[in-house]
């Protein structure tokens, strides 16, 4: 009988190496495997975070290498928190976040619920619906800019056709009242499929037997929906909100492509404002403090949210 492959490898391993390996504890071997990841995590995530924190207490400008860097204490934080412009960008971000999450959850769940029903062409429709999220945000931003064109845009034409208004009488990205909604519409169009897929996974994880038992108890469809479907899909929905919330808090590319933050400051979300401070005005210390404030905000909110999510899951 021929020898097995592991057997051959074991015999081929030189004596000292084998002895060294066999002398290691499980814990040591685990550390050897984990160490590269921990090192990378420290180098790529933790060190920059600590460095950013340090910079946030200075007046450093990275484009002024010849100027001395001075310790300014909490001055950067004070200036940011007292800057009405920054609070306006926070409001713009909150508005965008709230409406995109609300619309995406509502439409995404509805689509998932419809797709979950067995019908002809189910797979084809699923593929068609998820197409937008496969596109690059830069491409999406560009072609929606054309769709929103007052003179030639399809969006304006359709709205004009349905409402009777002159398509060139309004501009989605030039009007202060419409511009935030222009971005919300595009983000919803692009990312609702993602929410739908998560909801679909939740719906398909509900055992059929629970519905059968409810049928035996003569529970109405309406009651089944609220007492079985919604509670069992809720952890998935909350996960979708977490993913989309974090993504949309740092929304950048779509807004830059569509409105560039305008008109005025109407759609200037925090990520664009931060980028301008850091890489256009080159206020490195100030923008580091800004980044730390945003980090603490997102981290704090996400921690509270994850706790709530775990509570729902453990029910």
């Amino acid at each position: 009988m021929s020898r097995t492959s592991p057997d051959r490898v074991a015999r081929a391993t030189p004596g000292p190496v084998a002895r060294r390996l066999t002398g290691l504890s499980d814990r040591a071997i685990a550390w050897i495997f984990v160490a590269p990841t921990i090192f990378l995590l420290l180098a790529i995530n933790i060190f920059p975070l600590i460095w950013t924190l340090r910079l946030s207490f200075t007046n450093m400008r990275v484009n002024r290498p010849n100027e001395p860097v001075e310790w300014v204490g909490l001055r950067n934080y004070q200036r940011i928190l007292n800057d009405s412009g920054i609070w306006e960008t926070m409001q713009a971000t909150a508005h965008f976040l709230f409406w995109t999450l609300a619309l995406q959850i509502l439409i995404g769940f509805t689509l998932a619920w419809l797709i979950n029903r067995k019908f002809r062409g189910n797979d084809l429709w699923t593929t068609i619906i998820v197409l937008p999220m496969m596109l690059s945000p830069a491409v999406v931003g560009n072609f929606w800019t054309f769709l929103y064109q007052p003179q030639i845009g399809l969006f304006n034409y359709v709205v004009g056709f349905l409402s009777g208004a002159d398509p060139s009488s309004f501009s989605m990205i030039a009007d202060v009242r419409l511009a935030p909604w222009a971005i919300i519409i595009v983000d919803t169009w692009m990312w609702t499929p993602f929410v739908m897929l998560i909801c679909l996974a939740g719906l398909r994880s509900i055992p059929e037997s629970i519905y059968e038992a409810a049928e035996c108890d003569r529970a109405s469809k309406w009651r089944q929906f609220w007492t079985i479907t919604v509670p069992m899909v809720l952890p998935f929905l909350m996960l979708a909100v977490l993913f989309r919330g974090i993504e949309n808090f740092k929304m950048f590319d779509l807004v830059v492509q569509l409105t560039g933050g305008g008109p005025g400051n109407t759609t200037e979300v925090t990520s664009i404002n931060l980028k301008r401070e850091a890489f256009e005005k080159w206020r490195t210390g100030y923008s580091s403090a800004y980044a730390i404030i945003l980090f603490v905000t997102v981290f704090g909110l996400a921690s509270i949210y994850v706790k709530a999510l775990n509570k729902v899951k453990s029910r």
Partner: protein
Amino acid sequence: MKNRLKYSVAAAALSFGAAGAAQADDLTLCWAAWDPANALIELSRDFEAQSGHKMSFEFVPWPNFADRMLNELNSGGKLCDLMIGDSQWIGGAAENGQYLKLNDFFAAEGISMDDFIPATVAGYSEWPKGTPNYWALPAFGDVVGWTYRKDWFARPELQAEFKEKYGRDLAPPASLDELKQIAEFFQGRDIDGKTVYGAAIYTERGSEGITMGVTNILYNYGFEYQNPEKPYDLAGFVNSAQAAEGLEFYKSLYDCCVPPGSSDWYMSENIDAYKSGQVAMQMNFAFIWPGVNADANVGGDRSGYFVNPPGPGGHFAQLGGQGISVVSNTDSPDAALAYIKWFAQEDVQKKWWSLGGYSALKSVVEDPGFATSQPYAQTFLDSMAIVKDFWADPSYASLLLSMQQRVHNYVIAGNGTAQEALDGLVEDWTEVFEDEGKL
């Protein structure tokens, strides 16, 4: 010191005539991606043939040009040996040691700044302004001016209607008020079965667009960047009542006479609108004129060019254009300087103009045949004689972004009043200069 050492090595190499005979270097020239850049590639072939050096080019579209190239300079990158950087960068690049100082080189090679158009020397080469410290050779003269549909203006029925309405001929405007009247006249008009609009003006928010547009009006209403007697004294100059009136004028032009949806337009959008026959006039830098003149739809006799019209407070136009500098970090300073020496020659500058590049060399633009060499040449000369430029301080980016925000917020978004916008601008700029220790 480091720069001086580099220059010494380079100057020694050049003075021994070693540039041509020395080893062939690969030089990378960084600039914006636009029509003149293509002309420069064509022109630089002569340099490659003569010097043996190989030229590579890194061109970045205008909206991202400053971001990309200032990142490169600030990070000490080695991508660019030569930089045709924006005029506003000169202060920062000089003070942060990003460009080589060229005074000694110019002296050694007999290149005199007196040979170039004064406005381009002040705008593109000097830092501090008004002092003979040179960090660039004027490379491309540019200025904001206007292009108009000469063929539409010449139509008898439009001429008659305009004369009846305004009591004068439909012709290039002699004042800002006349400009607005013409724009109003064309707004929403049906020409050859197509709705056309008055004018395409700069409204872009992200980089520098609306500032480069609105300053053409503000200057002519009396706006000043600072007290001429006391540097960095802003109040009453930036936000004077006349300046506020100028800002109101720009908003009224935007409200009455631009194509729908043109709330974020800069150079390329204006060109597209004009070439596609959407607008009767467009505000744009002079660099577009060769392209307009050669265009199949609007070129030749169908287009004309005029200088930014005067207003109640004076007659100025926004300076554009750039100088060419040697990046301090280059590994090939001698070859880079050899390029500048070659580029400064009169023959090369003449060819530069013939290819569509706007030479800033006096002997080229003052040549008797220059004004008639192209239909836009005289307008270019007249415009270059009245230029003003934005701040070129090291903190120019903060100053520019504040102006972009304040002006866009008033003109496009319609928030607040013109006076409030300019008062806010004074606050922002004061804060910047206080941070800089200049106030």
